[in-house]
């Protein structure tokens, strides 16, 4: 047992993120007034550096390499998701500064917390051990709680934060207890591979199942799957909008990364997957519930932010289809989930970016009616929002469409999931209905109200980047599919 510092090089992205976060905290104490804007650019530089490191590590990660006695792994799935997290962080850092400045809480800690949360996400998807998983999840979650509540003077922000925090901690309780049960029933195993090797004997005890499902429940909480979703609308609404986007995209993606990895290795035994009590069936039911409830609740929602929050719940449902398919042995399901996560990351960040863009400190303009006439007044932003909404609804030629297509395609390879695909498709129809409500407001109605958006160059840049990314993912998804697919071939 020795600590090999060289192993740390494999985790350069995470280290860069943490280091830059600390640097920002330090710089914060010296930065005054306008100089604070520079802190965001520090964060962006950190993200860019992390991206470079991810790209640099890609080739070497063709084969999975575990480090630190099996605590962490570097493989393509992890790097792929790392890219998504860092991109999410980067976009958040583009959207946030004007938003924070307008509302008067532009502190350096914010950017540092974004970076720390990202580091936590990175850890989550690299984790192959329950301890590292727990640490990653907590790093990510604690930072997310703080980010949610960081607009201290805003009651909604604080309320959202306390709800998110209490429920998150509650879920952590389940997670920890579940881990303890798994640890005990597997005869002292905490690493994924170890757990997997002991499954046959562990299943003798119902406590093992309890532990397994406690862990899954905690992760289902993070992805906001029904019935563990109830924090999401409130926290999403309460959080500052750029944070909402970050949470909806990053936290969810990280939790899905953990779920995929955990179910794909620790709980991959056929003893646990199949049968009507296996997690495939349980998650299939959850997926159906999640899609349906998320969409139904969104239909009559007039608050755009909340509407998008419900929609993000429903997207977790679609993603669960992929997870289930993957569990049922469909090889292309994992890349489909990954692709979906990436396209969803961009889409949802873009959508919340526009929500952040449109309001100002006095008037958040969160209601659908407030969006009337945007198509005439700001055609470019309206177009971007339309692209995001269509992508969320799964209409070509957007990344959201291809993601859904890819996911359903994978699920269709398993006859047990036909019903789930049909449910998913019907849900898509419902979802289009409410996404189009916003489009209706933007284009079909006129309003004489003056528009005073938060705006800002970095925001515009962020919207432009996300919109282009979403369209490119829809028109030329091939490359990304290849990247995502390359990890499934193993």
């Amino acid at each position, binding site marked *: 047992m020795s600590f090999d510092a060289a192993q740390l090089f494999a985790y350069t992205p995470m280290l860069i993120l943490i280091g830059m976060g600390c640097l920002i905290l330090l710089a914060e104490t010296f930065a005054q007034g306008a100089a604070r804007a520079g802190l965001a650019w520090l964060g962006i530089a950190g993200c860019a550096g992390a991206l470079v490191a991810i790209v640099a590590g890609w080739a070497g990660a063709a084969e999975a390499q575990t480090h630190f006695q099996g605590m962490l792994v570097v493989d393509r799935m992890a790097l792929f998701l790392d890219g998504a997290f860092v991109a999410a962080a980067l976009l958040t850092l583009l959207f946030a500064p004007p938003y924070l400045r307008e509302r008067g809480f532009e502190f350096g800690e914010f950017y540092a917390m974004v970076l720390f949360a990202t580091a936590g996400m990175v850890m989550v998807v690299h984790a192959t051990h329950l301890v590292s998983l727990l640490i990653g999840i907590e790093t990510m979650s604690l930072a997310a709680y703080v980010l949610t509540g960081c607009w201290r003077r805003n009651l909604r922000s604080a309320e959202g934060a306390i709800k998110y925090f209490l429920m998150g901690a509650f879920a952590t309780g389940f997670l920890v207890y579940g881990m303890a049960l798994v640890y005990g029933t597997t005869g002292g195993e905490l690493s994924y591979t170890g757990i997997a090797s002991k499954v046959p004997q562990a299943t003798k005890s119902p406590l093992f199942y309890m532990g397994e*499902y406690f862990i899954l429940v905690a992760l289902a909480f993070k992805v906001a799957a029904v019935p563990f979703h*109830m924090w999401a609308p409130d926290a999403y609404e309460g959080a500052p909008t750029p944070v909402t986007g970050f949470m909806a995209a990053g936290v969810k993606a990280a939790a899905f990364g953990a779920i995929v990895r955990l179910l794909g290795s620790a709980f991959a035994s056929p003893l646990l997957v199949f049968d009507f009590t296996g997690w495939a069936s349980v998650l299939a039911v959850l997926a159906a519930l999640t899609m349906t409830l998320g969409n139904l609740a969104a239909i*009559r929602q007039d608050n755009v932010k909340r509407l998008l929050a419900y929609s993000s719940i429903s997207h977790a449902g679609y993603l669960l289809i992929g997870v289930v398919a993957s569990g049922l042995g469909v090889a292309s399901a994992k890349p489909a989930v990954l692709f979906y996560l990436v396209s969803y990351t961009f889409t949802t960040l873009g959508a919340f970016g526009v929500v952040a863009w449109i309001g100002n400190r006095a008037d958040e303009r969160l209601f659908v009616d407030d969006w009337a006439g945007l198509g005439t007044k700001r055609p470019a932003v309206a177009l971007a929002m339309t692209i995001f909404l269509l992508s969320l609804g799964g209409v070509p030629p957007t990344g959201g469409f291809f993601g859904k297509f890819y996911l359903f395609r994978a699920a269709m390879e398993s006859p047990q999931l036909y019903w789930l695909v049909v449910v998913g498709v019907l849900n898509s129809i419902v979802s289009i209905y409410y996404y189009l409500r916003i489009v209706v407001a933007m284009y079909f109605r006129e309003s004489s109200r003056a528009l005073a958006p938060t705006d800002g160059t970095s925001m515009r840049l962020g919207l432009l980047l996300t919109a282009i990314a979403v369209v490119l993912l829809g028109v030329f998804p091939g490359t990304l599919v290849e990247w995502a697919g390359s990890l499934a071939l193993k």
Partner: protein
Amino acid sequence: MTFNLRLIPLLPFLGAAILMLFGRKWKRDTVLLVAAGAIAGSCLVAVDAFFTALPAAASKGGLHDVVGTWMAAGSLKIDLALRLDALSGLLCLIITFIGFLIHIYSSGYMEHDPDYPRFFAYLNLFCGAMLVLVLGDSLPVMFIGWEGVGLCSYLLIGFWYSSSANADAGKKAFITNRIGDLGFLIGMFLLYQFTGSLNIPEITAAASGGGALMQTLFPGTIFAAPVAFWAALFLFIGATGKSAQIPLYVWLPDAMAGPTPVSALIHAATMVTAGVYMVARMHALYLLTPGAMAIVACVGALTALFAAIIGFAQNDFKKVLAYSTISQLGFMFAGVGTANFGAGVFHLFTHAFFKAGLFLCAGSVMHAMGGSGDITIMGGLRKKLPFTHGVFLVCWLAICGVPFFSGFFSKDSIISGAFGTEIFGEGLLWVGKAVGVVLMLAALGTAFYMSRLYFLVFTGSETRASDEIKHHIHESPGAMVGPLVVLAVGAALGGFIGLPGGLLDHPEWNLLADRLAPVLGPEMEVSRSIELGFMVASVVLALGGIGLAYLFYGGGYREPSRKFAAAAPRFVRLVQDKFRIDELYGLLIIRPIKRLAKGVFFVVDRILIDKILVEGSGAIVGVLARMARAVQGGDVQRYMAVFAIGAAGIVYLATRPSVPDVLKVTVSGLSVDVDARRGSKPASRVQDYSFDFDDDGKPEVTGAAPAAHHAYPRAGTYTVRVQVKDPNWGTSTSLKQKVEVR
């Protein structure tokens, strides 16, 4: 033999196109020149074709001209082809010649109309369409003309569009025609299906062979009849629409709303005879099926009588003529329906002249009377309109069947043909005689109402109209009178082309029959006694009708007519109201359809589909949505409670005992295979199974395998009991099933 037949319809079409595109800016003379020139040119080509080229080709199917393939799909191939034989050639001559006269007449009649060019464009278009109708070598090409003339009739009836009544009449004409066209279409389909062609010569050839068309259609039902019967019947439905026969005659009287030259050309001389022409053209088909022939003849005869009766009481000049036209068309159908095709066509020919003449006289009279056609205010016009009177007189005598005027010959040949026909076999022998009797009554009626018209309009000493109108009465201009005189000559002498030559031992004197023989077969042989007898009888009837009319109306309304009207007021009223057939149709067909459509629209479209199915499913989603949102109450502790319940539920679901609930038993001989399953699938969890094959408490097979095999020592009925234990929870389930081994 090919001939440039396409020129015949093309010239009027071109004229129409030119006038439509440029006519509005031209002077009236130019318009007339183009329009009349086109039809005159067409007439010349037709004359050339008929008299120069046709005789050589008459026995070989006439002149033929293929423009190109119109449409070909699958095994169906339709050429855009024209054919001129004696029958279609005769019609061509009638159409172009009378058409030309009416063009000339119209130049006077429409002189002051602002839409002069449009009128002539329509007239040209009509002539073109009519020529396509008669020249068409296949039924679909014929159908182009068939519908084309309907369209022109629609346009011309509604020519003075600003009056809703005119437009309504046009629409009524078109739609009634379309009802017939539906029959025509179905007839075509039947012929296509059973002969594989829509080409008239090919159908004729197939009909001569008989075979395919004599198959029984709808065997075993009350509709069982040969194909030929149905095809002929459906085609005849088309004819009843176009030629205004019962039950589709109702449009023709209304069609009189159009300009009078139109009534003369379209609704007397040409278009309405298309049905007769079509039956004659398809005579080979009709000859196959006496049943259909009987229907044609009976409908024709009944229409002839029925329309004549309505004619008794009409007070509008043109309406009387309209019913007269319907009646005369009935005569023609009776003619062709009794297989006396030549006579039918002969009457068509003579009728074209005298009826066109009558209508043009009507136009002239109305022109003089300031546009009014009310015969109750006319009278004594003999002196004021001498030319018109002269022409009317000739035409009147012709239609009444006074000897040696054209109508005499043609009508007589129909009536005697009806009595003499031998086409109807067993069971239908009565048809010929009955038709003949009805036709004689109709002839009597014709003489009566036409004489009534003549007496009321032209005789008497004084016009009954207001002074203002009286003051304006004047003879029409030369452009109108000229054509009248030509038509009068035709009406007087036209009968001589169809002299009953057989009667005089000179069959070759019957020029018409001679010419038509290659097309329609030899003229029907009617015994001399019958022919002579009915000739005398019809003369008596004609004179009787005229005499009766004189008694009633000579020189104006006389005492007997008033007495009669007073004696049976309700009957007179009923006849005046045309037996209220229009109202009956409205009540029985049109209004129910409209009501039904409206009702269905509201019930099915608005309520059932839109409200219940579409908005209903939307509403269900809406309710669910409200429920979904209601759960989200804002209290974080409730959220956590849901979380905890959800977690507990999942843990319960995931750890609840997973035990089989079905036994799958396969018996072969004395041995059985038992498989314990959950639903249809084997359970994947580890379980402990114990199989007790004879239910004696001592399991034969135990272990983790869900299936077991056992061989019984002897046949009998056993109970298999399987005990399943879940090691996780220590629970156990037992399943049992009866097995019978032999």
